[in-house]
C-alpha cells in the first residue's frame, strides 16, 4: 500500500481507535505519515472515529489471516510509548493480511522487525516492573506507585493478582495515569488522575529498615560494581525504590 506523507490520522488513544485507523487505511488505500493520539500538529489531520464494529472486523481479519501470535504482538506494540507505533502497526497488518501467519517470522523485513522490537521493549519493561515494583503496606492494603516507560500496568497486574489472591492491593501508574485495584473478587483497571498515599505506619517502617539492613549486608564489598548494578537496575527505578523501600 502506498504512503502519503502529507496527512496524518488522529485517533482517541484506545486500542479500538487504533484498529479503526487501520480500517481507514484500507478504505483510503494509503498509509498516512503518522497515526497518533496527539492533536497538536501542523499537518492535515483526519480524525478517526472509534467504531466498535469496525474494530471488531479488523480484529477478526487479524485473527483469521495472521493468527493469535500476530495479534499479541500488535497488542504489545500498542501498549508501547513509541511515537511511530501507529504506522508500524498499520504496515504490519497490511503486510500480514497479504502474507498470512508467516508474517511474524519475516524478521528481515523492516516493519516486522520494528513490531518485534516494540513488543520486546514492552515485554522487557513488563518484566522489569514485575521485578522492581515495591509495595508499601498502608492502612492494611498494599500500595505501589510506578513510572513505567510503556503502558505496562495491564500486563503486570495479572501477575500480582495470581500471586496475592488474599491481599488488597493498588498499583498506580503515575505516567499513564492509570490504576489497578485488586480487592477480593474485584479486579479493575481505572483511569486515575492523581494519587497521594497516606503516610505509612510503624510496621511498614520496620520492614523497610530490615530490608535496608539485608540489602547492605548482602553485598560482597571487594566486588563492588556500580556499573553492573546500574545496568541491571536502571536509575529511573531508584526514585521509586527510595520512596517505598530505599532499594
Amino acid at each position, binding site marked *: 500500500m502506498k504512503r502519503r506523507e502529507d496527512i496524518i490520522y488522529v485517533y482517541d488513544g484506545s486500542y479500538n481507535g487504533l484498529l479503526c485507523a487501520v480500517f481507514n487505511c484500507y478504505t483510503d488505500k494509503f498509509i498516512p505519515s503518522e497515526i497518533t493520539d496527539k492533536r497538536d500538529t501542523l499537518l492535515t489531520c483526519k480524525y478517526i472515529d472509534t467504531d466498535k464494529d469496525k474494530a471488531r472486523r479488523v480484529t477478526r481479519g487479524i485473527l483469521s489471516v495472521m493468527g493469535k501470535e500476530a495479534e499479541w504482538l500488535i497488542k504489545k506494540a500498542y501498549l508501547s510509548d513509541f511515537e511511530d507505533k501507529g504506522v508500524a502497526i498499520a504496515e504490519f497488518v497490511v503486510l500480514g493480511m497479504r502474507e498470512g501467519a508467516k508474517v511474524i517470522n519475516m524478521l528481515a523485513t523492516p516493519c516486522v522487525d520494528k513490531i518485534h522490537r516494540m513488543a520486546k521493549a514492552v515485554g522487557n519493561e513488563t518484566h522489569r516492573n514485575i521485578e522492581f515494583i515495591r509495595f508499601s503496606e498502608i492502612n492494611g492494603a498494599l500500595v505501589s506507585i510506578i513510572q513505567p516507560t510503556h503502558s505496562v500496568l495491564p500486563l503486570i497486574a495479572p501477575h500480582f493478582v495470581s500471586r496475592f489472591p488474599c491481599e488488597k492491593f493498588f498499583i498506580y501508574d503515575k505516567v499513564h495515569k492509570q490504576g489497578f485495584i485488586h480487592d477480593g473478587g474485584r479486579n479493575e483497571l481505572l483511569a486515575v488522575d492523581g494519587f497521594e498515599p497516606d503516610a505509612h505506619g510503624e510496621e511498614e517502617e520496620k520492614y523497610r529498615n530490615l530490608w535496608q539492613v539485608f540489602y547492605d549486608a548482602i553485598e560482597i564489598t571487594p566486588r563492588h560494581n556500580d556499573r*553492573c548494578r546500574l545496568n541491571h537496575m536502571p536509575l529511573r527505578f531508584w526514585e521509586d525504590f527510595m520512596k517505598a*523501600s530505599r532499594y
Partner: protein
Amino acid sequence: MELADKLRVLTESAKYDVACTSSGTDRVCPSDGIGSACSSGLCHAFAGDGRCISLLKILMSNACCYDCAYCVNRVSNDIPRATLTPDEIADITINFYRRNYIEGLFLSSGVIGNPDNTMQLMIKTIELLRYKHKFYGYVHAKAIPGAAEHLIERLGMLVDRMSSNIELPSSDSLRLLAPNKSRDDVLSPMRYISGKLKAKTKGFASAGQSTQMIIGATPESDLQIISLAEGLYGSYGLRRVFYSAYVAVADNSNLPAVGTAPPLLREHRLYQADWLMRYYGFKSYEILDKSRPYFNEYLDPKCNWAVNHPEFFPVDVNRADYERLLRVPGIGVKSARRILTARRYGKLDADALRRLGVVMKRAKYFIEGGGGIAAADSPSRAAAALTAMGRAESAAQLSLFDILPALGQESPIEV
C-alpha cells in the same frame, strides 16, 4: 541482640554462597495462599556488587561448630554470632515477599551442635512458612553435610531446590581445609537427592539440585574444575554448578593471603565454559586439555576454540545446521534459532544478521555469506583481532563483568 542486628550478621555470613536463582519451577497460588513461582526466575534488586537479589539469603545460625578454613563462620574465627528463630525467619520472609522485595527464601546454616539438630530447625522454619503462612513462593534449602537421610527427605519435600555444596574442587583440598567434613559427607546428600529426583519423587525439590565450589582457594586447574562440573552434571543430574571466586578471609598458610583479590576473571571464564557445556554442546576436553589446562586471559572459551579449529570454518550462515551455527563466535542460542527461522524467507545479508542479534565484529571472521570476510588466512587474523579486542576491553576497564548477567541468573550469555 536486636532483630536487625541478627539479620545483618546472618546475611553477612550467607553472602558468599552464590546461588540465588528462583528458577526451575512453575506454581500457581491457591485462593487462600500467598505466592507463586515462575520457571524463569525473577530478580527483585541488584546489590552493590551487581549481583541479583532474588531470595532472602540467610543462615539460620552462624554459630558453627566446624572449622572449615576458607569459611568466615568457622568456629576459630572471631566474629559476632547470631541465631534466628523459625518464627522470625518465617515472619521476615512473608513480609518481604508481600512487598515484592524477594521471590522467596534461601535458607542455609552453620552447624548448630550437630547436623541433624540443624536440619530439624530448618525443617521447622519451612514448615511454618508452608503450613501456617500458606506460602507457595520459592524456597531453596541447603542440605547440611552429614545429616540423616530421613531429614534430607523431609526437607526435600518442603522446598523447590536443594543444594549440597561440594565446596572445594578436589578431595585433597577438602581433607586439608575442611577437617570436620569428609568427601562422603559432602557427596552423600547429593547422591541421595539425585536418587530421589531420578525416581521422580512427587513434590521433592521440583527445581532440582545445585552445588557450588570455591575457586582460587586451592591449586586445582581450570581443566580439573570444568571436568568435575561436567561429571556432576552427568552423574548427579545437577541443574547448576556455581563457581565462587574465593574472597580471602582467613590467615592460613594453605590459603591465599588476606587481601588477595578474588579471581573474578577466572570465575567469569568458568561460567562461560559452563554455558558452553550446557547449551552449546561442548565437551570439557574441547574447551581445555592437558596441554592448555588454563583459560586464555583475553579470549573467551568459545573464541579460543574457534581460532584453534580453522578446519571447522567458514560456516555458511544460509545453510549450516543449528549445531554448526552455535560454534560461531558472535552467534548465540537465540540468534542461531532466529537465523534458522529467518533464512526460510530469503538469503541473509550482514544487516539481516545484525538485526537477528549476531555480533558481527566477532562473527565476521568465521562465516561465509552474510557479510563474512572469512578467508584462507582468517583464523590467524581472527585470533589477532579478537585478542586485541579482549586486551582493549580489559585495558579500557570495560569490565567483562558488565556483560556477564549477574551471577546466578539463568539467562544464557550470548557468546
